[in-house]
């Protein structure tokens, strides 16, 4: 366990070190990439100066709304589809092929419908995240052992109590996976949308720096996105592992 962590750390550290060397000796040209140490310094300065805060707030609020909507609507849709097998059979092929559809193709349509503001990027983030939530909610509900529903009946539990005390906790690991994926997909959707037509946000700032050949800001922001999203996912991954270990999973 500890060995695996050390190996991961060594892989990341080694890659950073190699990049640093390649940039420092000029094998990777300065206008292509700056050394990782310079990225870290640039990011530090951006964070300390506070210039990043308004864009960070814009992006994170967009992601938060997209995630919250995806979790709520995804969960309710998953529960509805589980309860109505005929509807599920009809929609199953759409879910199976959903991620083959480039959701960004709808971005112009969203702008026409909602205007050039934060709504289109939230919708794109939501569209990316919601199906992961639906599919994982369905997986979770499918895997509730039938004997637990019988157990609920032997305890004279109402339908509401059965859902709250038996079905949801039993399906929780899969629903949790849905939440984890929804957060990751919402980030992709929102930050990606900011690249295209937004006028604020981390994605917009990366795009702006790229168009102005400002490699320090460009790479500092890329580093920020990587570290921030990895930290969130690492936290969720550790939490998920703790839940699964307690339940006898891996």
């Amino acid at each position, binding site marked *: 366990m500890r060995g695996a962590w050390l190996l991961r750390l060594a892989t990341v550290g080694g890659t950073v070190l190699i990049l640093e060397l390649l940039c420092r000796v000029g094998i990777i040209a300065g206008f292509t990439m700056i050394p990782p140490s310079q990225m870290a310094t640039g990011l530090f300065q951006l964070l300390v100066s506070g210039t990043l805060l308004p864009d960070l707030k814009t992006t994170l609020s967009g992601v938060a709304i997209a995630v919250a909507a995806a979790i709520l609507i995804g969960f309710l849709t998953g529960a509805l589809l589980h309860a109505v097998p005929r509807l599920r059979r009809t929609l199953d092929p759409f879910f199976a092929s959903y991620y083959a559809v480039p959701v960004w193709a709808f971005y112009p349509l969203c702008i026409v419908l909602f205007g050039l503001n934060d709504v289109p990027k939230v919708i794109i983030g939501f569209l990316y995240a919601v199906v992961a939530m639906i599919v994982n909610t369905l997986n979770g509900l499918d895997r509730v052992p039938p004997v637990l529903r019988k157990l609920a*009946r032997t305890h*004279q539990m109402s339908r509401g109590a059965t859902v709250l005390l038996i079905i949801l906790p039993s399906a929780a690991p899969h629903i949790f996976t849905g939440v984890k994926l929804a957060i990751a997909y919402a980030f992709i959707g929102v930050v990606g949308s900011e690249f295209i037509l937004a006028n604020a946000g981390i994605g917009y700032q990366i795009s702006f720096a790229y168009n102005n050949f400002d490699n320090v800001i460009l790479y500092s922001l890329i580093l920020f996105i990587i570290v921030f999203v990895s930290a969130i996912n690492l936290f969720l991954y550790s939490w998920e592992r703790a839940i699964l270990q307690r339940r006898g999973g891996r």
Partner: protein
Amino acid sequence: MTAEASEAQVVLQNVTRVYARGATRPVHAIGPLDLDISKGEFFSVVGPSGCGKSTLLEVIAGLAEASGGSVAFEGTPTGGKVPEGIGVVFQEDSTLAWLTVWDNIAFGLRRRGVAAAEIKRRVDDVLRLMGLRDFARAYPAQLSGGMRQRVCIARTLVLQPRLILLDEPFGALDQQTRLLMGDEVLRLWRETGATVFLITHALDEAAMLSDRVGVMSARPGRFLEIVKTGWPRERDSRIAAHEEFGRLTSRLWSLLRDESMKALGYPTAAA
């Protein structure tokens, strides 16, 4: 106390259960069958695979409604609802994976709004009774299959049911553990005074544990015969050494052999 001297706690009259299967032919699972189970009796059911043993248990428990006939528990028809006073232990692991052993056992008491101090007393008592005291804070995944089944039995016992329905609770256990679990069930039966209805596919288990054994036919399941064991109430797995035990087991097998062959589609002597 003998079964004959006690009043009937469970009464089944002309009970049938038919499963509708959409457009295909309905499946006649059990019946018609009649059965009286006396208060405090240990009654077991054996029968070939698929004969409807578990269906019978579900009908008695109120988990499934009889398609015909009537089922009454302590004089009240069950009508497809599990009445208060009945506890069920299922064949499958039904521990709640997200709760500790202690919380699993306390689950039903909390649902009923029992006071915290009373919950603690009863759960601790049952943990001691079932030899689970050292595992109170463990999660089910950290226990063996046998211990998880003990948690399920404990969760049922803590509610002090008057009728305990056991659906092949030791099915997944090895022979030694089965025998020891059988001893524990007998001890609990004596200590609690509850009526026990056990479904099993193990003839020796039925012969060892029961006051009476109902032998079921191949589907649709009916009682071919109800065999009285005549064992004293104070008994344990060592009764297997008794010569009557061998006679009893072979009597059960002789009743079951043809039915088991029928269930498997083999030609029988009668055919």
